[in-house]
């Protein structure tokens, strides 16, 4: 294989991985945009979603209907988790110093991970995730698997759906208003609490989908599976400018491609360091991320 096709091959792999990161990053960025909170538990919502799908698929079998059912079921479970967590843990701290909310988020994340670990029917051991049979299609010396195609298509569909919700519906408009100025939004009669819950739910739905796709691509589920993709997606969100939806998508793809490139050409161990390296370089050049708005503090 020539170096050109090798690069293209890695780009294809990167796009597949990047789509998953982008989906997770969207959840981070929406939540940050609306309550200014780095929701560290977001990666673990992904784990919850993946496990929900795992139990659904092992119970009802792997068919097209089973797959769609698994998506819906895990989205509902994750959204419930997201909304309940927001109500119980984050809402009381909305006016507390930001660092308290941050630590609470880390606490919630630890509870989800370790809770999954000690619950008897989940347990600490990784399990095989039921997936469809992988078929590789070769195009011009490059191989694309059917799983990769599904991953990319599902994520693009979800991103378009999200974009429609945020840009063209009344709720989306309310979301944007709350993120722009919460107090003013509430004066305009927008039910701020409900909108924030909705945002958490929406983010969790995307995380659930990302969880299933991630578990399909690397076919296993375990309680700590959400940490690394969560952290990477978080970098992606910051990279693209946290709070910005197109930014999260761009950031996800950049990070996915960078990661597969590093793994393909340098070393797999360095890929995490490279991800953070890119983040640092971009933040130093443009402190608010690629698409971030620059807000100057005024006295």
């Amino acid at each position, binding site marked *: 294989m020539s170096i050109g096709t090798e690069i293209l091959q890695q780009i294809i792999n990167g796009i597949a991985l990047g789509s998953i990161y982008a989906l997770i990053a969207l959840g981070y960025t929406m939540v940050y945009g609306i309550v200014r909170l780095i929701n560290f538990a977001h990666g673990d919502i992904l784990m919850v979603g993946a496990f929900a799908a795992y139990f659904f698929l092992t119970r009802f079998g792997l068919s097209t209907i089973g797959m769609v059912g698994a998506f819906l079921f895990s989205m509902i479970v994750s959204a419930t988790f997201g909304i309940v967590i927001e109500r119980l843990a984050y809402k009381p701290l909305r006016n507390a110093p930001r660092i308290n909310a941050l630590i609470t988020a880390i606490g919630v994340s630890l509870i989800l991970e370790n*809770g999954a670990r000690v619950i008897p029917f989940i347990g600490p051991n990784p399990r095989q995730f039921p997936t469809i049979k992988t078929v590789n299609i070769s195009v011009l010396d490059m191989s694309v698997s059917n799983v990769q195609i599904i991953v990319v298509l599902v994520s693009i569909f979800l991103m378009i759906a999200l974009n429609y919700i945020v840009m063209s519906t009344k709720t989306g408009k309310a979301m944007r208003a709350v993120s722009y100025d919460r107090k003013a939004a509430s004066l305009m009669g927008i039910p701020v609490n409900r909108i924030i819950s909705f945002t958490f739910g929406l983010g969790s739905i995307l995380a659930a989908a990302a969880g299933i796709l991630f578990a399909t691509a690397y076919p296993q589920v375990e309680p700590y599976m959400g940490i690394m993709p969560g952290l990477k997606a978080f970098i992606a969100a910051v990279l693209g400018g946290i709070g910005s939806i197109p930014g999260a998508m761009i950031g996800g793809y950049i990070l996915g491609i960078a990661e597969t490139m590093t793994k393909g050409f340098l070393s797999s161990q360095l890929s995490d360091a490279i991800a953070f390296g890119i983040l640092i370089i971009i933040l130093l050049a443009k402190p608010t991320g690629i698409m971030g708005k620059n807000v100057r503090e005024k006295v």
Partner: protein
Amino acid sequence: MEHKTRNSILLAIVAIAVVVIPTSLIKIEVIDEYTAQILTLAGINAIIAISLNLISGITGQLALGHAGFMAIGAYTTSSLTMQLGLPLPLAIIGGGFMTAVFGFVIGFPTLKLTGDYLAIVTLGFGEIIRVVLINMKGLTGGAAGLKGVPGFTADILAQPVISFAVVTATLVLILAGITNFLLSSYGRAIISIREDEIAAASNGIPVFFYKMFSFTISAFLAGIAGGLYAPFFGYLNPTMFTFLKSVDFLIIVVLGGMGSITGTIIASYVLTYLQEFLRFLKDYRLVIYPFILIFIMLFRPKGLLGRTELSLVGLLNKVLQWRASKAKDDKEARR
């Protein structure tokens, strides 16, 4: 003036007592070896939590990568003793200086960022340090870890006593140093940055310089803590210094009160002991601990002490005042 000498003597006596009394108790085995280990570990945690509090609580710049600094200190110290054969105290100080250099280099670009972005970039540097350490197999033993770091003393039986004494003495010295530092003009400048960066800058305080200053000192202290950790544990592995470790220290700082040095010290002893105490719950401990954390965040958001400090001198003055006023009351009553 005589008050000043009186206070200094009081504090010196307390400082010596804090080190000497538990050490002798460990020596005559009133405090068992296991508790001694916990106390030593808590001391190390206190040092690194103070270092984190200096930059996050007192300067107001949230940093999430202190485990990385600790790792640099630990590995530098162990390399200096194991490969260059330097005596341990020199190696620990060397570890501190090495970390300070790294802190300076990392701080220079990153401290231009603020708030969440700074937190993320320091988190990133912490992770990069860890990954680089895994890949520097010659010095660090890579992912397999570095075994056989020489302890504080060659005598295994005396190890718990000496470890405790060294760590606690270092902690007391650092506490004295940092309290005086905070009362100096440098310390005031740093606090003013936390209170209001813009106001500080418009009052002619070179904000960036003081942030760098605080960050470098913070890195130095974290390096010292790492240097103490290496001989205490005797084994190093890059997985000990993950992002979650940094979070552990942040939890100590927030629980003790952001900006309160004494609060940090109390919190590190409480939390280190709590983690050991909860061991009887087995794996459920891992769930209970974050629950406790969230409850504290919900019901006591400013931490144990908030921004106030426990002050022995202040306490003494209060007692004296109370006695003086009581004596006066008595006199008036007799009249």
